[in-house]
């Protein structure tokens, strides 16, 4: 199996497992699903250090966009907590 296939399959399996686990825990906060999925994406991408430089560059760009989304969700949660 090629490295790209392994990478996509591991992402799909991890997100499937996380969504199932959070659903079993009866979580109803979409922000939580989003943040956990983004963290998983960033961690799995870090494991694939051997991807070619062009692929890594493209994935880093996608990662920055996802991370920005993650920061927005965290900021909204913080504002919610502060405002009571």
């Amino acid at each position, binding site marked *: *199996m*090629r*490295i*790209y296939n392994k*990478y*996509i399959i591991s*992402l*799909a399996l991890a*997100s*499937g497992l996380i*969504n199932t686990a*959070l*659903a079993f825990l009866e*979580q*109803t*906060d*979409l922000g939580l*699903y*989003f943040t956990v*999925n*983004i963290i998983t*994406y960033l961690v799995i991408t870090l494991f694939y*250090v*051997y*991807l*070619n*430089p*062009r*692929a890594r*560059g*493209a*994935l880093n*760009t*996608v990662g920055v*966009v*996802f991370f920005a989304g993650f920061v927005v969700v965290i900021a909204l949660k913080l504002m919610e907590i502060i405002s009571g």
Partner: protein
Amino acid sequence: MAGALFAPVAYFILSSVPIAAVGMSAIIIGFTCLALANARPYISPEACQLILKTGMENTASLLEELGLTGKAVYLPSAMRDGHPQALIPLMDDGNIQRLRGTIPGRLIVRYGVNPDDMAIAVTTPGSINIDMLATKPGPTAEEIEAAATYILTGVLDIASSVKVTMSGAQVVVEVSAPRLPYEDIWYYRCLGSPIASIVATISSEALQKPVRIKEESYSQSKSRIILEVLS
């Protein structure tokens, strides 16, 4: 695309957060696939194969015409004007065990003190690939393994994994699922398969010593390459 449609439908109409999360995951994987698809090389694999075969056939013709049957010795860039290359001795019994100083940057070169110590210096797939490494690997098995994995698995995508072990003057490399395995042709008998050539160049550069491909075997979708480190 499906995830982008599915997530809002699940969240606003079905009012199901877990199903909306599945849609969101599909969006993440979709963007990842899109990024990887755009990172494909500019030149098609068929064009790359054509260029590789052309180069190999030209070198093979030269080797056959000169009747060279000796095994090539891979030199580190420091011994070859900053560009790693392979030396093939002109004499059948050419014993390149001890090379003297830097080899001049020509096609036909003298590597020893005797008049018969002549060889031809050729560029191999490994010579070109060494420039793709950001830093030169160190002289340990782990560093050679990391560099070989980066080139063979990440950059070229021609193997699944690489394992390197070192014992004395031997470097043993096991390559899983190689997509350019060894063939019994003149070029491979002299210079080794492209995978062996890449591994030999990386090892030579890491150890800063000449390296020869001693043995190359293929079984159960695994390639085993034994390299001999020359002094």
